[in-house]
């Protein structure tokens, strides 16, 4: 069962931002609590950028302006992760005004209190946050740190207990690149953490070429004790070179900042570990198979069953794909999310496999939408990454794409919160009447094998929002009134709908 939701709230029906490059975190203790991010500015300006907040399993979303550093597109890069045990939300951002790396924390992602800044460091790129552990929050932030020496820029900032301590909350920096680069690693450093303390990081080691045509190795490093080993992330040694970090692929071509459709290319990599077996790890990356004269951008998926020491041949390759994301659920099913350029459309697809693609998989098409419009405001157009996570047997993900309200664009269905006319395929402003231009929006989805997440149960079939100016204004004009405590413990019914207590969410 697959449910897809356009994340722009109804009160922002008039917005036309390029809300690209999404990220997501699901509270594993309460999957009705989901946070997400994108290049979304604070809708009315101000010093804080927003995060997307859902407390009903992703059915509805609110923008909460709690992230320090609101620029023209909110923050620059931003990723998030929930504590595995206490609801604390962590974020890694490039601050929207200073562009410095910020590592942030909030104990309540629904509150209006600005997130606490734990780490600030300039000259950084693409922080990627993962949280793990039990009883203490072990938080990892992969990043490309240009302050590192010798061009070994792939880095992980980590804390073994980040939940409550004051800044820097135990964070320290580990340079995970031990090989030779052409001056730097690629931007992405992706992480996968197993509950037994095995931590994997995947990176792009730039090894040669002349800009913008570069060669790269795809390298995996590992730590077997939560990143707290005496020499962190040194457990994998390349079987040929003897250098820390096993190369899963070598001498792959990248044409940096080349365009595919209206989207830039260059830095796609993903890694996931099987929660049932820390020896089994999956890796995806993109490169240009055609080399310097090629035009493709090909995704490869490989698997290791010996903790990253050896890697399979490609188990899955798809041409003209970017933004691969991997997750493995509690049944060891592998989820693979990606965005494919067909020449005329961007198709966002989800594949699930229980046997590593030994059996052919029919992708679920989440969205297929013209690649010709809207025109880009900036790069990245749809994002340098998406994200897929799993909790128990379910997969949760986010992607960005053209928001034209046309059911033909959503073969698996979709729900919009923002006002739209699904007959004329027109977005409508908050008045339910005025047309709004199509733009790039973030979309949430959940795939669940057995049960629907809280909040989606009972909503009935996923149908487009009713086409009625009065109805579309209704949720605001007729919205429920929530009186302050003290109030009766049970909801009361008022003329505009149920009246609820003010409750701590």
């Amino acid at each position, binding site marked *: 069962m697959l449910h897809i939701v356009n994340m722009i709230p109804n009160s*922002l029906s008039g917005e036309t931002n390029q809300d690209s490059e999404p990220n997501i975190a699901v509270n594993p203790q309460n999957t009705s609590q989901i946070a997400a991010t994108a290049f979304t500015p604070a809708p*009315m300006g101000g010093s804080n950028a927003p995060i997307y907040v859902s407390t009903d399993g992703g059915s509805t979303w609110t923008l909460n302006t709690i992230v320090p550093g609101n620029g*023209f597109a909110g923050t620059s890069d931003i990723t998030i992760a929930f504590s595995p045990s206490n609801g604390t939300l962590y974020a890694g951002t490039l601050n929207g005004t200073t562009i410095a790396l910020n590592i942030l924390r909030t104990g309540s992602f629904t509150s*209006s209190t600005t997130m606490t800044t734990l780490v600030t460091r300039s000259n950084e790129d693409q922080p990627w946050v993962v949280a793990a552990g039990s009883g203490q929050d072990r938080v990892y932030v992969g990043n490309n740190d240009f302050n590192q020496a010798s061009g070994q820029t792939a880095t992980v900032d980590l804390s073994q207990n980040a939940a409550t301590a004051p800044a820097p909350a135990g964070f320290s920096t580990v340079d995970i690149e031990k090989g030779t680069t052409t001056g730097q690693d690629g931007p992405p450093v992706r992480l996968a953490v197993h509950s037994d303390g095995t931590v994997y990081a995947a990176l792009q080691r730039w090894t040669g070429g002349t800009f913008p045509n570069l060669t790269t190795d795809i390298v995996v490093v590992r730590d077997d004790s939560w990143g707290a080993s005496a020499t962190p992330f040194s457990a994998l040694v390349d079987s040929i070179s003897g250098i820390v970090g096993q190369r899963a692929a070598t001498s792959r071509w990248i044409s940096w900042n080349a365009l595919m459709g209206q989207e830039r290319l260059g830095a796609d990599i993903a890694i996931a570990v099987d929660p049932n077996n820390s020896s089994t790890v999956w890796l995806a990356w993109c490169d240009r198979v055609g080399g310097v004269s090629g035009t493709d951008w090909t995704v490869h998926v490989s698997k290791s069953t010996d903790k990253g020491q050896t890697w399979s041949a490609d188990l899955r390759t798809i041409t003209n794909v970017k933004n691969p994301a991997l997750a493995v659920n509690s049944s060891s099913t592998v989820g693979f999310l990606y965005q494919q350029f067909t020449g005329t459309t961007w198709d966002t697809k989800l594949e699930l496999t229980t046997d590593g693609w030994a059996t052919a998989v029919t992708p679920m098409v989440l969205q297929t939408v013209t690649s010709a419009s809207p025109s880009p405001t900036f790069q*990245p157009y749809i994002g340098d990454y998406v994200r897929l996570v799993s909790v128990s047997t379910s997969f949760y993900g986010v992607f960005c794409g053209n928001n034209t309200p046309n059911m033909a664009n959503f073969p698996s269905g979709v729900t919009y919160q923002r006002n739209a006319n699904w007959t004329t395929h027109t977005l409508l402003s908050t008045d339910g009447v005025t047309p709004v231009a199509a733009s790039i929006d973030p979309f949430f989805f959940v795939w669940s094998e057995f049960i629907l997440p809280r909040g989606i149960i009972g909503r009935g079939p996923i149908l487009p929002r009713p086409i009625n100016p009065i109805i579309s204004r209704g949720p605001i004009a007729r919205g429920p*009134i929530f009186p302050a*405590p003290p109030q009766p413990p049970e909801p009361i019914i008022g003329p505009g709908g149920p009246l609820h207590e003010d409750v701590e969410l």
Partner: protein
Amino acid sequence: MSDEIKALMAQAPFSFVGTVLHLGAATTTQVSIDDRTAVVQVEHVLRAPEAFKRLDGHQITVQLSATVDPPKVGDSAAFFVQGVSFGESIVVAEVGRLPVDAVAPHAQAAVDAGKAAGAFDGLALEMQQADLRAHMKDADAVIVGRVVGLEKAHQTTRSEHDPHWWRATIEVDHVESGQVAGPTVQVLYANSMDVRWHRSPKPKPGQSGVWILHKTDAGLQDLAPFQIVHPEDMQPTQQLDVARTTGE
């Protein structure tokens, strides 16, 4: 009164005439409720970002300012607010409030002109011009000139967020302020369309205008003496009149 309105506008991107419907209540669960939480019906948007210009008739939650006497249910006023959260309804925080009469002339003029949410357009323009004057005053040089050359200045491969420095050669027609030697001046600009840089000026061949120049950052002086990075560093020639007015 215009100065008072402008002072509030400087803090409040959204202003509207509204009527208090409930106190100690909200339109959403996404806010803590106390006796300064109000449900207010938006009667008429005075000024708003584009996405909020059509909120007339909507009920929103206002966190009333602790420094302003709270209104009573049924009171109408001009509310000046900042955004807090945005879901099915919106929550805003009040930064100031004025009697309806204080904004009525502006609102009526906008209605007469057929401008939705345009009550303070004139005041907003004055504020923008004041900001531009301040920006020009802070610059190291302001010139009028024409682009006669563009070339790649520097290449790093650091990240997706690299500026992609290019160098523009501008033929100087007039120096409004600052020191510029010679008939031409070289200026660095960020040619990148990355999210960090896409709003920075991108000079075009032959383009004329007012160029608001700033000394290049450390490490870039060898590439050019000046840079233009701020979105307002490139202006139409006619904006020179703005620099020459006092704003009085």
